[in-house]
């Protein structure tokens, strides 16, 4: 499925959260990367049909979020994991996912229960299916959120900061899961963690103050920093960023800081820092 944002803008009062977004996103896993307040959640909420755009349109395979009937078609194909995941504490895991499956038009009880079981197996929660949600840790609750998002086998999956609050082990398992899910779906994943994008995304959109600064493959973003990352004793005054690494040297992004500096392989984070440093608003 293809997602198209056309001249999409959104304002919260006088604050402009999205400013003329024009992008097309195809199948695979796309990471929306940017700092807090960049507009990632707003982009996802508009596509999730929760928030009307101030101007412009968001479309899924031609269905616009601005048309009442087309919104239902989008919702039929959508799985959504919000950033602030609200669950019913007194429900069991199975009961909660089953409830959402009902609302997603899976009405035949046997078929629905089977789908719930499959969704719980996909996130490795089958052993806690009967436990009350209030007894679960944050990481497991997050997986319950993913289970409800995938229970109706959606073609579009929107995951808003899905790794927030997960410990490193849970994060790795989550990335494996999303990697599997992304083989046959369009997934938009918002994050401010470069590692998430580096680990699982097939494409990346860098957002900065409501504008798209970059769209392409993670490798392309990394390439942007080629020849501009150095190990040095000291940073030059015009360096984009510099920080001391565990070998005692400074890692410098920018022009060659001095004759003793040696070039190093850029990472995705270097590319991200370089791209965002070029923003006129910075």
């Amino acid at each position: 499925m293809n997602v198209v944002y056309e001249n999409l803008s959104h304002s919260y009062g006088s604050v402009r959260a999205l400013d003329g977004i024009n992008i097309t996103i195809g199948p695979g896993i796309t990471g929306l990367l940017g700092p807090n307040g960049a507009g990632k959640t707003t982009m996802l909420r508009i596509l999730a049909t929760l928030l009307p755009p101030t101007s412009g349109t968001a479309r899924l395979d031609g269905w616009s979020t601005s048309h009442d009937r087309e919104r239902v078609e989008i919702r039929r194909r959508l799985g959504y994991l919000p950033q602030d995941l609200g669950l019913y504490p007194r429900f069991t895991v199975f009961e909660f996912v089953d409830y959402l499956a009902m609302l997603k038009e899976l009405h035949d009880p046997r078929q629905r229960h089977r789908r719930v079981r499959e969704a719980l197996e996909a996130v490795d929660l089958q052993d806690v299916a009967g436990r009350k949600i209030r007894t679960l840790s944050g990481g497991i609750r997050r997986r319950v959120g993913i289970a409800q998002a995938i229970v109706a086998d959606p073609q579009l999956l929107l995951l808003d900061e899905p790794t927030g609050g997960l410990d490193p082990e849970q994060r790795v398992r989550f990335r494996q899961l999303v990697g599997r899910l992304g083989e046959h779906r369009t997934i938009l994943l918002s994050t401010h963690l470069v590692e998430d994008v580096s680990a699982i995304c097939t494409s990346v959109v860098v957002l900065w103050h409501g504008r798209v600064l970059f769209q392409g493959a993670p490798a392309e973003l990394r390439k942007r920093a080629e020849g501009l990352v150095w190990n040095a004793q000291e940073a030059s005054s015009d360096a984009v960023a510099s920080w001391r690494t565990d070998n005692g040297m400074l890692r410098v992004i920018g022009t060659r800081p001095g004759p003793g500096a040696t070039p190093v392989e850029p990472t995705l984070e270097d590319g991200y820092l370089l791209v965002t440093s070029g923003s006129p608003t910075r």
Partner: protein
Amino acid sequence: MSAHTPSHPSAALDAVANGRVPDSELVAHLESCPECVAYLGSKAKLDLDYAWRGIAAELDAPLPSTGERLLALLGVPQWLSRFTLQIPSLRPTWLSCSTVILVLATLVTIRLVPTRALDVPVVLVVVPLLAAFAAAFASARADPAYEIVAATPLSPITALFARLGAVLGANVVLCEVAILIAGNRLTTGHRLRFYSGLSVGRGTLALGWLLPMAAVALVAAIVSARWRPLAGAAVGGGAWLALVAVTAWISSDPVSSLWGTPAEIAYAGAVLVLAFLLGRSSARGFVLSPNVDFD
């Protein structure tokens, strides 16, 4: 086991392999005949993983709650009853609190109205207040999982009517009981009897308490849909209390001014306008507001 002899029940085994439940005779035969077990294994089309997943799913699936079973008796589909029963203002604790408040209001009304210590029956003032809170906390925003629920194909109008209808229905039952009790305990001929619902034959005034309740509930629902449940309850309840206070201050007969025919006609008009506004705003199904949900 291609050379399956006539002494083995091939036809019955084939039927079992296609999903038929074996009878006790065949089960006994299988227990003593490894050849038939092997034959069945080779013929069975059953995917054991698939079958097990179905069994495990049914074991994990919760039984319908008492509320769901009661609503099922009324023909309400399970998805709608489970959706409706998630409304905070329909939880047993909420309804218990409402009942306690109504009991207190009824007692105060029975004690004080005949002594003329109060001009306005407290129970009639409390009823719209309860409805305002109940309607506000029945809005989509009061649902902890509202973002997830709003992203499902569930029709926003269906959701709205299910939530408001269920909450107002529950409140109507509770309030009617309270007003009936208050009306019956007061002296015969007291005007509260006129609003008690006993006098249906006397025309619209029999529903005197219902229209202001509906109007106040709709105000609360509109505000809470746009802002937050607490704001909805505060605006709806506050508007009603202000109306009662001002009327009690300026009118020599506040009961007639608040629940008399001209007031009822005004409430009816307000209900129509507010219901239209609520329906129109909810039809679009956007649960988030640019003024509230900045991110």
